[in-house]
């Protein structure tokens, strides 16, 4: 790969990461505000963002505590939301190789956003780069804005709503998904995964729909076996992608 190509890939990843990092700030402000309302001190609130570092689980735990829920209920709800990290770990593990202490600190950055940007890249090197840039960026912004939210809090939720910032996340995820939709089996898995998740939203606790969506991959062999499929890829192509392959922008 030429250095011009490397620069192009690097700056594309930076642009993807920047939009996503900017989009988390309003939500950390709301988290800080919610934690303050639930009676947490600024230190406890900051501790959640530093050491738990998983947006939805932090929200759930603090909300349950604020409603007078038990310690057990708050912790279990948060952990259930994070079971999906286990699956993220399986996706990202090959790209996060290194000494045990490197894998140990990189694991703390494992959230929806870093896994989304990382897994959208081609080849381990760029998957790792996308994961780290997004993970570190979100970590810094999430923690800083959590404290701002706790100290300054009022009205954050209305501002997010009025500016349509809650549509920024889904748009970013769709953009990361987009290049995959060109392949038949990826498209089938995406449609099925989305359907499973939406159906489960009213039926299962938050976090479970995302986790269950991954069962959609089990249907992928159907897409491969269909006859007269001109764009079908061979098994070897799919299981050993070229490390330097650059997807279309």
């Amino acid at each position, binding site marked *: 790969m030429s250095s011009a190509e490397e620069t192009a890939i690097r700056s594309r990843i930076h642009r993807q990461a920047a939009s996503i990092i900017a989009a988390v700030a309003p939500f950390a402000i709301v988290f800080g505000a919610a934690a303050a309302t639930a009676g947490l001190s600024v230190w406890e609130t900051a501790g959640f963002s530093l050491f738990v570092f998983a947006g939805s689980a932090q929200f759930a735990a603090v909300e349950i505590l604020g409603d007078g829920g038990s310690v057990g209920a708050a912790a279990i709800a948060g952990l259930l939301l994070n079971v999906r990290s286990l699956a993220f770990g399986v996706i990202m593990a090959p790209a996060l190789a290194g000494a045990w202490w490197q894998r140990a600190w990189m694991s703390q950055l494992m959230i929806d956003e870093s896994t989304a940007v990382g897994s959208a890249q081609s080849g381990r090197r760029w998957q790792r780069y996308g994961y780290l840039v997004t993970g570190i960026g979100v970590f810094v912004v999430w923690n800083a804005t959590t404290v701002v939210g706790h100290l300054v809090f009022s009205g954050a939720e209305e501002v997010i709503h009025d500016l349509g910032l809650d549509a920024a996340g889904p748009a970013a995820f769709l953009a990361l998904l987009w290049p995959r939709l060109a392949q038949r089996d*990826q498209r089938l898995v995406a449609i099925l995964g989305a359907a499973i*998740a939406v159906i489960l939203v009213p039926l299962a606790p938050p976090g479970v729909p995302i986790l269950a969506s991954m069962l959609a991959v089990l249907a992928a062999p159907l897409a491969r076996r269909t006859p007269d499929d001109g764009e079908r890829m061979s098994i070897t192509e799919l299981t050993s992608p070229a490390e330097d392959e650059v997807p279309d922008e």
Partner: protein
Amino acid sequence: MSDAMIVLIVLASGTYALKAAGPLVLGDRALPSGLRYLVDLLPAALLAALTLVATVGDDRAVVLDARLVGLFVAGVALWRRAPFWLVVILASAATAVVRAGV
């Protein structure tokens, strides 16, 4: 110790165990090729689910609101090959405009 502190310690250690299990236990050990094929497809399911749940999910209900317009605009922008940042801004702007009009 406050309740919040206990939840913080339990949730932080449990969450870390879930996050680190893949990288620390599995490492970069090669998976069998059939399994590898399925793991390569996981991001498609994950990204599609994140997209839809963030668009129509509201706690434990499915709510169709202005975010759906934002997602549609994002889809059109992607189809027209708009850059990533523009896709995100257009989606937010479209959502905000719909809300201002309602």
